[in-house]
């Protein structure tokens, strides 16, 4: 993360490549040899596909029965279609709306849990740590079925518990236009173990001298958190934040499996990537799918760049000289 923000300093100059000593030349060749699997893979599965996605947007590429239609250049037709289709904007709005609900939970729940796990008063830290992590390794489809059963409006344990506590009209969860989002979030909370452990590793990396110094200065719990803990783990939070945002923009597996990608209930689960998936996979319309993908990529890129620009105000890298 830190290195990404300092990319300019590591770009090689051509002069340094040309005037190499024999020893350096040998290192260069060997280094390139060893990283060549990744270099080839990066070209074949990342860089070329990225460029191809862009080129696709100007074509009328469809795969029907495994054969290509005669290819033609269609100019900006795919873009016109995309920008004039109201579904593009409603699905993007659904994605953003859900992301705004899920993001704070996806950041604060792992952080709070990591703080609890890092509390010296907790007995059996290793046990708790492992157990909170454990649902993360459960197959995604199995986890959906577990929670689907737990949250079944009629027979699920959650609503049985709510009813027994005197709740008159327990939520309809996955069948309800509003409650379907909390349903996804609850299913997602089961996977916070990984983010929790990353945050916990960050917390354990905070030097104890800093806490001692804060105590000497008479800082209370809250002041210590804001002035010591938070700055020290801000790189880890930043990392989780970027990954969560990129992930939430592409959110679609839950609506695909839980609601079969139909948008039930009432179109509330027609996320952007559900539309994109159906366009390229179900209808095999590669060019329109690529256009949708390119718009999503542009949106994610803008958000990520803005986020990286804010990093210098709140993300603290201990190794930086300031």
């Amino acid at each position: 993360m830190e290195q990404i923000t300092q990319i300019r300093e590591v770009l090689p100059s051509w002069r340094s490549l040309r005037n190499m000593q024999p020893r350096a030349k040998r290192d260069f060749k060997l280094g390139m040899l060893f990283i060549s699997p990744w270099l080839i893979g990066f070209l074949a599965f990342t860089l070329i596909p990225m460029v191809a996605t862009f080129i696709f947007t100007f074509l009328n590429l469809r795969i029907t029965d495994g054969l290509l239609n005669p290819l033609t250049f269609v100019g900006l037709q795919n873009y016109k279609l995309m920008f004039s289709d109201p579904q593009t904007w409603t699905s993007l709005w659904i994605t953003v709306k859900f992301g705004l609900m899920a993001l704070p939970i996806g950041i604060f729940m792992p952080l709070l849990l990591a703080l609890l796990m890092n509390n010296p008063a907790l007995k059996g830290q290793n046990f708790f740590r492992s157990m909170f992590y454990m649902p993360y390794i459960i197959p995604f489809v199995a986890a959906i079925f577990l929670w689907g059963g737990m949250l079944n409006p009629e027979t699920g344990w959650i609503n049985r518990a709510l009813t027994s506590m005197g709740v008159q009209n327990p939520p309809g969860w996955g069948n309800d236009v509003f409650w379907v989002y909390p349903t996804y979030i609850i299913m997602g909370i089961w996977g916070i173990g990984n983010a929790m452990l990353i945050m916990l590793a960050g917390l354990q990396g905070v030097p104890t001298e800093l806490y001692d110094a804060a105590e000497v200065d008479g800082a209370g719990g809250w002041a210590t958190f804001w002035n010591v803990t938070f700055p020290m783990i801000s790189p880890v939070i930043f990392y989780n934040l970027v990954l969560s945002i990129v992930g939430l923009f592409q959110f679609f597996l839950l609506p695909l499996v839980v609601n079969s990608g139909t948008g039930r209930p009432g179109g509330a689960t027609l996320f952007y990537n559900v539309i994109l998936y159906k366009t390229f996979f179900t209808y095999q319309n590669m060019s329109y799918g690529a256009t949708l993908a390119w718009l999503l990529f542009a949106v994610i890129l803008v958000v990520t760049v803005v986020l990286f620009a804010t990093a210098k105000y709140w993300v603290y890298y201990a190794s930086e000289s300031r």
Partner: protein
Amino acid sequence: MTRKRSLFNYLWVTLLSAFLLAIFLSPFVYMIFTSLKTGEQISVLGSPLWPAAPGTFEYEGKVLEMFSVPLPDGSIKDMAMFKPGRSVSLFIDPDNPDAGAIEWEGNWRGLERPWQFSPAWSNYADAWNSINFPRLLANTTMYAIISNIGVLISCVLVAYGFSRFEYPGRDFLFIVLISTIFLPGTVTVIPTYTFFALIGWVGSWLPLLVPTFFANAYDTFLLRQYFMTLPKALDEAAMIDGAGPFRVLWSVILPQSYPALMAITVFHIVYAWNDYFGPLIYLSAAREKWPVSIALSTFNGIYGSRPELIQAASLMTLLLPLLLFLAAQRFFIQGIVITGVEK
């Protein structure tokens, strides 16, 4: 005073964690209980949460049905019905069968039946037989093992190239590698899929297996971080003895990297076992090549009205990753710590 306070602290922090954990893991209990219920129990509203069947009692070689019988003194006793009658029925007290039949006046049809713990193990056999589990397990295991070999070979080589050689552009390329972690997969999937469709690989395992031999950012990063912690003095000693770079990697670095290699292996096996999207787009039409994740997702449509089978099948698919995790917890946690420190 402080000791008392710290004891109180221990107590409430640990109890709070235990309470949260109980809620967090309660779906497992739901899954186990539901997978052992009969369809009849599930359809009865207000039936117990645990697997149960209407109670029975064996008396003199016969299986009698249990009923909750109100006694004259106002209490209710669960008794086995020996002989039903229109206005008088005979019951056996299960706690004291030797006392013989007890007469009870009233209509037995109005009596409730008590639930008795009764797990329906046959659900597991039914779920096992309803989708071809042995073949699914074989497919998934094959995927996990071959792709893991690909990941290990390629990521070890690439991490070695990023950690043990100095050359211009290395740090730049490493940043490119790390950046791919944040790259949305959406922007590459369509041409990749189109390409694999054109060369006729859709419907085979190749689109899922071949790319694993070209290194991925997560595992390369983890290995590179680990290699950086190993002292270079040993490499140099081996090189003075005439070892080439492959020899150094194989005989010096790899033997010291056991924890990192284990971490990658366990992470990758779990990843491959749970992978859904890749098999979904490449193997949907090739039913005989399905991994467990895809087959399980079809359960919802086919057995939507049989939650007990869905839960039994779910439990069988999560058993392997769960056991692997419980056996290799420390490698999972270490793996995250290795990558987590430098973010």
